[in-house]
């Protein structure tokens, strides 16, 4: 049954990608890309990667689409007719694809339990992590504890991307305060539904944040979901009112605070006589130490991701509002 679902979903994914190639209306392209992301999230669930599916659904289908639409609002929504011949790209793609297909024939069969990937470090994570780290969710154990240093690096990359976007675009606060009232102020249905939904989204984000140790979820997903709540607020009530709730300057501080919180857990464990990010030293009982460490660093990740996603949205949205005047 799993194979059958896999078959159908992947076929739908391939069709979506094919349609994206030929569409000239970029608005439709972005919408199809959102569908593409949702389909791949379904595939991830089918392949047992629940945490990944969670992230893909909130990030790929949510934030990516919003940012792309924000760009389209500034750059125009149709692609111009391409006069160049598509023969050469087609040739390149066909040859590369054929070589890759030939390469896949050497891959171990899909789903076999004795594939090389499952034989090295993975059994240890599966067998030992519930005892060593004490969390039922192995993905969180590996993400936050065994590969904590790696995750710190990724959080810094996300932070660096925010710096990049802010350096390129900047958030023009003074100007947006003067533009005409933005948002959908006349749409009562939207306003009331948003008011009902936003607290639930934030509550859900907090649940995902703090339940990530036991079920699917964690800082990355929670940060994005919380940012989505504020993006919805900014979309419906206008950017200036969103600035009054969480200002761009405050967000920049928040983004660095998350990274620093994460890194300071590492420094604190060194101070306690362990190595960098060695949570066993955080408390007398190593398991309790692991739990404290993971909760704090996941919080750091969540705060940074939330602040970064919202700052990036602010940067794009304030460009659009400036363009409208």
């Amino acid at each position, binding site marked *: 049954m799993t194979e059958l679902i*896999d078959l159908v979903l*992947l076929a739908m994914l391939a069709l979506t*990608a094919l349609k*994206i*190639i030929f569409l000239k209306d970029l608005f439709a*392209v972005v919408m199809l890309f959102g569908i*593409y992301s949702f389909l*791949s999230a379904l595939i*991830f669930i089918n*392949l*047992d*990667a629940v945490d*990944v599916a969670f*992230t893909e659904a909130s*990030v*790929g289908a949510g*934030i990516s689409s919003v*940012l*792309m639409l924000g*760009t*389209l609002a500034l*750059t125009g929504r149709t*692609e*111009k007719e391409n006069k*160049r011949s598509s023969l050469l*790209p*087609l040739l390149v*793609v066909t040859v*590369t*694809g054929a070589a*890759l*297909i030939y390469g*896949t024939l050497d891959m171990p*069969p*899909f*789903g076999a*339990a004795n594939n090389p*990937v*499952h034989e090295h470090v*993975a059994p240890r*994570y*599966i067998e030992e992590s519930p005892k060593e780290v004490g969390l*039922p*969710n*192995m*993905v969180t*154990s*590996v*993400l936050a504890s065994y590969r904590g240093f*790696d995750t710190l690096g990724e959080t810094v*990359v*996300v932070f660096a*991307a925010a710096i990049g*976007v802010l350096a*390129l*675009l900047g958030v023009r606060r003074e100007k947006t305060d003067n533009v005409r009232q933005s948002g959908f102020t006349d749409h009562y249905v939207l306003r009331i539904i948003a008011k009902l939904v936003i607290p639930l989204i934030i509550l859900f984000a907090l649940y995902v944040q703090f339940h990530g140790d036991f079920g699917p979820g*964690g800082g*990355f997903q929670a940060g994005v979901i919380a940012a989505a709540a504020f993006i919805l607020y900014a979309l419906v009530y206008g950017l200036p009112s969103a600035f009054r709730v969480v200002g761009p300057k405050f967000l920049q501080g928040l983004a660095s605070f998350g990274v620093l919180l994460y890194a300071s857990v590492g420094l604190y464990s060194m101070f306690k006589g362990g190595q960098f990010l060695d949570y066993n030293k955080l408390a007398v009982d190593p398991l309790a130490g692991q739990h404290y460490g993971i909760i704090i660093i996941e919080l750091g990740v969540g705060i940074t991701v939330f602040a970064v996603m919202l700052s*990036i949205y602010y940067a*794009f949205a304030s460009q659009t509002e400036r363009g409208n005047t």
Partner: protein
Amino acid sequence: MNFIFDYYNYWVVVFLMMAGFYIVISANNLVKKIVGLNIFQTSVFILYISMGKVSGGTAPILVEGVTQYSNPLPHVLILTAIVVGVATTAVGLSLIVRIKRAYGTVEENEFENTDDAI
């Protein structure tokens, strides 16, 4: 039939990867190129997750009575890659916004002839 099921995921991954690659090299519009890059990226995600799947296994969350779990390591790598991916996509899109402001167009063939406007 078994042969097809053994490799089907990888073939679709190759197809998606090539679809993304084709959009990147043939599209004129920069926003569409970014969509192409994202399709390419997602195909790599699916490749990793497909390799992590174990037939008959379940999601890597400890449940009593279950012995066969899928591999958690690819999940960790891809989870963070998705978030990093959207962050880098945002940088790419903001570059496009700046290009639009400097050249007045985001169609590749239209600004390759203009002089340096920045």
